[in-house]
């Protein structure tokens, strides 16, 4: 009896004193030996599971890069497929260590959800996809149409603004997953599907007959997509931020997965700093010196990841566009690696 009372009291005490405990995500990941990464439920090019259960994509590469930097093994990732509606709750509750799920960086999300965006790994914009036989060539002809949208996305807000601005009306049919929006679009429940341009390209190749659908030229919003971490753990925030920057910087320095070991030994000072044969960059992050070397040899630089997943080597065939390095006229720019 006394034991029971003691137990109850200690549980109560534990409840009371469980104040603001800020877990160090880095320690958790290291002791667990795997990184838990929130990804989409399946979106070609960004995060998709193949028939062998292996995940791939631009967003998946972001998870792999962090795992390579922290654990030295890009495969030590446990993927958690999340719908748009679930993602922030999963991150806030600690179910995942980081979120890499084509998530738009918005002011409201950054300031009121208790999360931090660690950069942008794809600059996107919302657009429209219609069936060719609808005979529509511009979004301005969509007055009175039905829209298939994924629930809880920033697109849901962008399209409301766009139609209001242009004095047009529409009906929003919202679904939980992007795959359901595609089904709704194919069955004719909606006249058009709206989402980020890259997602439209991915959904289009998933159609029974991709040639029947066209993506309209209008881009109605800014959708910078990037990895997200919980607020309040600055060390982890830095690790994710600089893992992305390392991939971008490697492309700027023309360091690839193929030549990284050579550059580590024989490269210029900047190469050596990045790859850990000189300087303290890894140590400052609380990681080993070869953190970026692991990312580049196991995942590749940004260009390699892009081309493999969404670029010319992939079914999506997206052009680099503004996602090119600043040296090539794009807006990808990593802060100085020193």
């Amino acid at each position: 009896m006394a034991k029971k009372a003691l137990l109850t009291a200690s549980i109560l005490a534990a409840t009371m004193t469980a104040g603001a405990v800020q877990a160090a995500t880095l320690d958790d990941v290291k002791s667990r030996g795997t990184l838990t990464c929130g990804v989409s439920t399946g979106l070609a090019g960004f995060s998709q599971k193949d028939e062998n259960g292996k995940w791939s994509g631009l967003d998946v590469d972001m998870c792999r890069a962090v795992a390579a930097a922290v654990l030295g093994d890009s495969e030590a990732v446990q993927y958690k497929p999340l719908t748009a509606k679930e993602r922030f709750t999963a991150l806030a509750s600690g179910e995942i260590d980081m979120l890499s799920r084509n998530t738009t960086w918005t002011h409201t999300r950054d300031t009121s959800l208790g999360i931090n965006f660690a950069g942008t790994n794809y600059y996107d914009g919302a657009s429209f996809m219609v069936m060719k036989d609808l005979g529509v060539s511009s979004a301005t002809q969509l007055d009175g149409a039905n829209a298939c949208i994924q629930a809880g996305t920033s697109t849901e807000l962008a399209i409301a603004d766009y139609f209001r601005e242009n004095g047009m009306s529409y009906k929003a049919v919202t679904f939980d997953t992007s795959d359901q929006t595609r089904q709704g679009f194919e069955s004719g429940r909606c006249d058009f599907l709206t989402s980020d341009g890259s997602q439209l390209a991915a959904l289009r190749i998933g159609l029974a007959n991709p040639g029947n659908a066209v993506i309209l030229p209008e881009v109605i919003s800014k959708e910078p997509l990037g990895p997200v971490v919980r607020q309040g753990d600055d060390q982890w925030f830095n690790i994710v931020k600089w893992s992305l920057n390392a991939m971008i910087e490697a492309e700027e320095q023309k360091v690839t997965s193929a030549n990284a070991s050579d550059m580590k030994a024989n490269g210029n000072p900047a190469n050596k700093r990045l790859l850990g044969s000189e300087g303290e960059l890894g140590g400052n992050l609380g990681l080993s010196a070869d953190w970026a070397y692991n990312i580049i040899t196991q995942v590749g630089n940004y260009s390699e990841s892009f081309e493999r997943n969404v670029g010319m080597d992939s079914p999506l065939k997206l052009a680099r566009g503004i996602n090119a390095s600043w040296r090539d006229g794009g807006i990808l720019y990593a802060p100085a690696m020193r």
Partner: protein
Amino acid sequence: MFKQKTIEEVKSASRKSSSGTTSNAFYNNPRIRGFFYQIALIAGLLYFFGTIIGNTLANMEATGIKTGFDFLGAAAGYDVLMSLISFESTDTYGRIFVVGFLNTLLVSAIGIFFATLLGFVFGVAHFSHNWLIRKVALVYVEIFRNVPLLLQVFFWYFAVLSSLPGARQSLSLGEAVFLNVRGLYMPKLIGGDLSSLVWIALGAAVAGIFVLRRWAKKRQELTGQQFPVLKTSIAMVILFPLIVAALTGFPFTVEYPALKGFNYFGGITVIPELMSLAIALSVYTGAFIAEAVRAGVQSIPHGQTEAARSIGLRENKIMSLIIVPQAMRVIVPLLNSEYQSLVKNSTLAAAVGYPDLFNVFVGTALNQTGQAIETIFMTIIVYFVVNMVISFLMNRFNNAVALVSR
């Protein structure tokens, strides 16, 4: 002989023996003690929940998550597929809450109505003398009771309604009713100046039925003569408004749905999300209600039927006058929990995108504002209150049909 002590003697004896060591101090007074423990318990609970809430708020503050109910006044910025009140994307989250609540009530009411109808039809059909009808009732119950509800919602939405033709190849009935993958479009009556008189006539007819029923019952009790209440009632409901409408020169215009651009506009639209959810909820819950009805009817001893036959009642009268009224005592408490389950199951709306409270508020509003605790708390309260109201009404109904014991 051993004499048994009375309780009074035992009490006084114990009082005497204890009075030596413990006085009649206030802390030995059982009332004061009880009061003290009650206070201590309440204080403990208050402290417990107060600390949990305080900790939560402090932790949310520390991790930079916004708290409070201010968001209810902020513009939502997104659209809702279906709304019973006017709604635009510039309206507030508070209004979204109301829109979702009304949509939940709508699908629940439709579901409860049709589930009850299906349940009673198939429950009674179980006792039919016709082999085929009996087996159909059995198959209905076994299939729909044993398949998960979510699967049924998907079935109606993706397998049945999504395979309907597109908007431009709609199935039509006399160019007035259209059915396509985007929903069911029906003509709408739009009332003119004098149309309210017609509605008043309809109301009068309904009120008249109650008066008629009471009169017919009294007459039967006094004279034994029966009056055809059902036929008269149907005639009243149809004729009263029709006569008034004819006298006022049919003050209605009919708005037909018409294809304009991408969609049909005008008339009444029933979206497929609502249809699939309402059908699934009705059919699923109907199967359970059918079993409740069967249990209720079977609980009535066969002697009741035989007694009714012996006084010369016809078979259909035996069911409606003898068996069902007694069976209701068993059925109503079961109905209560089925109705409550139906309301809670309506949250499966999220699976097909029907904008019920759970979908638009816990789904989208939570995601856009990030205020999980507030939105979930508000939604829990709503389902709690709705189910309490159902429970209250069904208990009142139960008291009315219960056996009056004296």
